[in-house]
């Protein structure tokens, strides 16, 4: 099946700075793909290239099988939603939605019909005669999405659309976007720095750093089997615990000598090799007290800080001299200074080569 968007060997340089390097990406029909990464990683740049707003230095872009590398944005079959909504300030909502269509010379009835359909899907019908200044942030964003909707295109591009909204609105609109995708089934390429948005919305996530895609996989894989140290540290909040040390024999020896058996771990190469390594384990995979009994590795630790978060409690302690966190139910009373027994199974965690930072 032909992919919806195909990016082949894409490179972009701003003068001497290589922003994107030899990027390849295939996006399937109807897929919701998220480009995730911190500021400056190239995700917005990539989106702008796909949109045709930026000229690439090398490589090609195909949308629905058509080579659009030299096409203008309006001829690429895309609609775009911007971080600042970018609504035309002096036009009413209805005019904002229909402006592009009117300029293209579309028939009046067709325009009215499309505007009506978009307004109905996004529930902005009562707002049609208002100007953007009289809309709330959430409403503005819906109009911005509507403007892309009326174009009747296959691919939707989102450039950090929720970053300007407050937390509550952000989670509300996030669900709306997911519902939209389920209803329309269009391909959606979504850029964000917020991992929650990425994890909840995406079919696949492309984590980017310095213009290179670190890992391209579905959220579950990215979360549980990160492909390198960077991805492991980026995804997950609170972040993964990292222990430095070395693999020797069938164990991981931490810097203070603590030995952790790694027999249950699924090595990519099939088996363990001796090397300097970093062991990563997520806070929710470290267990306390009774649940720890079943774990292959157990140790006693002293609680240093307790952060009660309502739904659960986050505890800070030390393992091999390094501060680590673990989660436990808020029912369990923990106090600073308590000596408890914790344990985990390395199979749930990740081991990375200390030099290359790749997953072992």
């Amino acid at each position, binding site marked *: 099946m032909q992919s919806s968007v195909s990016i082949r060997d894409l490179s972009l340089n701003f003068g001497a700075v290589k922003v994107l390097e030899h990027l390849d990406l295939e996006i399937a029909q109807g897929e919701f793909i998220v480009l995730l990464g911190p500021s400056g990683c190239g995700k917005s740049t990539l989106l702008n290239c796909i949109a045709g707003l930026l000229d690439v230095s090398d490589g090609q872009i195909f949308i629905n099988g058509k080579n659009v590398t030299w096409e203008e*944005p309006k001829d690429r079959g895309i*609609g775009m939603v*911007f971080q*600042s909504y970018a609504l*035309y300030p002096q036009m009413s909502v209805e005019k904002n939605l229909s*402006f592009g269509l009117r300029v293209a010379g579309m028939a009046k009835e067709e325009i009215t019909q499309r505007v009506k359909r978009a307004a109905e899907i996004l529930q902005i019908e009562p707002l049609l005669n208002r100007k953007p200044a009289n809309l709330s942030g959430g409403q503005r964003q819906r109009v911005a999405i509507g*403007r892309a909707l009326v174009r009747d295109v296959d691919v939707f591009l989102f450039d950090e659309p929720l970053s300007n909204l407050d937390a509550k609105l952000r989670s509300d609109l996030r669900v709306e976007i997911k519902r939209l995708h389920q209803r329309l089934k269009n391909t959606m390429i979504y850029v964000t720095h917020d991992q929650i948005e990425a994890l909840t919305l995406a079919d696949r996530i492309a984590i980017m750093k310095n213009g290179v895609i670190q890992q391209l996989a579905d959220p579950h894989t990215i979360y549980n089997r990160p492909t390198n140290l960077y991805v492991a540290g980026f995804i997950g909040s609170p972040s993964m615990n990292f222990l430095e040390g070395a693999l020797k024999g069938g164990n991981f020896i931490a810097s203070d000598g603590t030995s952790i058996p790694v027999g249950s771990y699924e090595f990519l190469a099939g088996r363990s090799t001796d090397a300097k390594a970093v062991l990563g384990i997520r806070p929710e995979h470290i267990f306390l007290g009774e649940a720890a009994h079943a774990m292959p590795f157990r140790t006693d630790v002293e609680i240093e800080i307790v952060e009660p978060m309502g739904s659960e409690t986050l505890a800070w302690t030390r393992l091999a001299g390094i501060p680590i966190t673990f989660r436990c139910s808020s029912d369990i009373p923990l106090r600073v200074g308590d000596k408890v027994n914790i344990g985990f199974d390395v199979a749930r965690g990740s081991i990375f080569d200390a030099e290359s930072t790749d997953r072992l």
Partner: protein
Amino acid sequence: MADTAVHAGEGAGTVVRPGFLKKTFLHNLPAKIAAVPMMATVLIVFVGCTLWTIYYSFTNSKLLPTGKFVGFDQYERLFATSRWNISVTNLISYGIMSLVFTLVLGFLLAVLMDQKIRFESAFRTIMLYPFALSFIVTGLVWQWIMNPTLGLQGTMRNLGFEWFTFDWITNSRMVLFALLIAGLWQGVGFCMVLMLAGLRGVDEEIWKAARVDGIPTWRTYVSVVLPMMRGVLITALVLIGSGIVRLYDLVVALTNGGPGISSEVPAKYVYNYMFSGGNIGQGLAAATMMLVSVLIIMIPWVYLEFGGKGRRS
């Protein structure tokens, strides 16, 4: 300082009333003293002189101000004087043309400059330098250029272009256009800079959205950007407008009101009658009329900008 004086006054157990007055007056005293020049200026000059001028325009003053009240006499004489009437029509014609051309040219040039061109800095320097010059300098150099025998017309004819005419400065029907060319030369650069700043204030993402929507560049300028520039346009309008009413130096330098009285302007009329015509009353009446015309323009603007609550441009 002022604060301690206040506290001392309170602590001394004075009765509320006198203490209150003293407190209000002494409170923040250094600031009030420092603001005396401003308050004096406002009261004596901006308010006082204006009222004085208006009042004495109703008198019979000739060489010196007299207190003899004559009602609207001066005004009747004013409106009957062809020199004044021509001044007013001149100013209106010049004003409208200047306003329109300055805004349109300023905007067009700003749009061109907004197109990511090379040498932007050089172009801006070239267009704006006339603004740094005095109106006298501007008027005199254009007077020379427009000299019929030795200026541009003469030169072109000597070069073989017999048909070339540029004697507007001696032509009473065209002299206002001569004034316009000089005035535009000085003012367009400034307007362009203002407009360019306004254009640059437009969010980049709006441009992106328009491009994705398939709106051609010119259409984006007209339908999206221009409506967004309301604030800048109004500011430019007010500035250019207030400059036009004051038009004086340029006329003195370029044409001195000539040929005859065909390029007279109100500001010059006022000056001539006040200081060399020996008829102060007339001059004051004319000045008051200038004030009235400014008020007519200003008051709607003030209302638009500050009266309409919640209507932020």
